[in-house]
């Protein structure tokens, strides 16, 4: 193929990835409202469409039709730029997420490095949004958000190192393929697949905790603690700018769920005649449900407890996990 055709193909796949991403975010938002409502013995959205299924779309239209306010004292350029920096990296993560063996836009050889490199941009957007709003609540939320995210960045990176040591590759497709061989066999039947959750249970525990904190989901949603900071770093944002922050955040939470499936739960691999894509989305939505469940169950923790946990518990433990993994691998 000539270069023009290749660029055309990638653009097409990119637009498709954007569409798939947004559809999934919409499902996530609807699911979150419904599941939390169910756990609080309410109905949740019921009016728009059958069982309120069109509610997220109505919300988007409502947000689009709202006045776009830039506070007079705000730093105008940065204020407008912040939603860009929140949404574009969140979308760029879709590039290398393998939905199934061949359904991936580009299987980057440095996949994991790329993903976490891009995720590191998120605190920048939070900080810029908080600072440029010229509002006390926004600034406090922005600072807290950035501090929280950089504190959990390192445990997040260190927790998956065990998996990389076992696989010897950064590519997400390679990581899933390494999990498709059986761990325990009984004759021709696989009792346990070699999913990394069985080999790296503590790695997964650390990964998921750090990931929740990194994407600011409850119980770690300090930057937007509604009861004390109004809406956190995006207090001053209205209309589509607010919606973009919202989309970016949910997109990151979705990616975190998808990544736990890919890295620890065998990605698209499953059993029976069901295609891999179905398995992948099924597993991902189990994690999405789990995240929502946590949100409606756990209270928010304090900022000092949060920072303590990141630096004094998670960071040393993840490093110890790497060493123990190394010794176990040598010992075998």
């Amino acid at each position, binding site marked *: 193929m000539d270069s023009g055709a*290749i*660029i055309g193909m*990638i*653009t097409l796949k*990119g*637009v498709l*990835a954007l569409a798939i991403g947004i559809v999934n975010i919409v499902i996530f938002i609807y699911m979150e409202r419904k599941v939390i409502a169910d756990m609080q013995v309410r109905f949740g959205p019921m009016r728009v469409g059958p069982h309120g299924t069109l509610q997220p779309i109505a919300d988007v239209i409502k947000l*689009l*039709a*709202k*006045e*776009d*306010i830039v*506070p*007079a004292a*705000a730093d105008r350029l940065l204020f407008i730029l912040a*939603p*860009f920096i929140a*949404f*574009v990296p969140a*979308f*760029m993560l879709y590039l290398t997420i393998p939905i199934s063996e061949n359904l991936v*836009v*580009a299987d980057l*050889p440095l996949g994991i*490095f790329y993903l976490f490199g891009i995720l590191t941009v998120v605190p920048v957007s939070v900080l810029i949004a908080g*600072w440029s709003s*010229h*509002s*006390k609540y926004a*600034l406090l939320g922005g*600072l807290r958000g*950035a*501090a929280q995210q*950089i*504190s959990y*960045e*390192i445990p997040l*990176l*260190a927790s998956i*190192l065990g998996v*990389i*040591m076992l696989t*010897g590759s*950064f590519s997400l497709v390679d990581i899933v393929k390494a999990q498709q061989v059986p761990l325990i066999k009984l004759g021709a039947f696989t009792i346990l697949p070699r999913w990394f959750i069985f080999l790296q249970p503590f790695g997964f525990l650390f990964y998921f905790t750090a990931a929740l904190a990194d994407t600011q989901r409850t119980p770690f949603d300090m930057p937007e603690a509604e009861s004390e900071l*109004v809406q956190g770093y995006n207090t001053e944002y209205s*209309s*589509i700018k607010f*919606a*973009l922050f919202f989309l970016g955040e949910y997109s990151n939470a979705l990616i975190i769920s998808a990544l736990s499936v890919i890295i620890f739960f065998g990605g698209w691999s499953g059993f029976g005649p069901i295609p891999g894509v179905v398995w992948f989305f099924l597993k991902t939505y189990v994690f999405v449900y789990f995240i929502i469940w946590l949100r409606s169950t756990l209270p928010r923790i304090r900022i*000092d407890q949060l*920072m*303590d946990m990141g*630096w004094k518990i998670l960071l*040393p433990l993840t*490093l110890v996990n*790497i*060493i123990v993994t*190394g*010794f176990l691998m040598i010992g075998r």
Partner: protein
Amino acid sequence: MSTHVTNLISIIIFMLIGSGFVLVMYGLVRLIAPTATSHEKLEPYECGETVVGQPWVHINIRYYIFAMLFLIFDIETVFLFPWAIVFKKLALFGLIEMVVFIFILLVGLAYPWKKGVLRWDVTI
């Protein structure tokens, strides 16, 4: 084109598509949303009260220290990644090297811990 170049191009294209989507959304809002600005609307939100003082004030030095710690540890984790990928080839030698490295890292963590920098309940 080699796969390497294709991958780079696909990253750039994704960036452009993302930015394009945001721009289209901004344009849509320009078209649809009403504009009826007033002085009160452009004030920063402060629960309906008149704004008191400046938001851009002195902030706790602790944030700065955490940012610096993050920088140090992030660079050290970057060193861990290439090691992890060739770990199987390096075997025991590589592991002992890394144990020493991680030990130094942990000493680096223990020092600010002991100094009380990681505590939030006291003012420095």
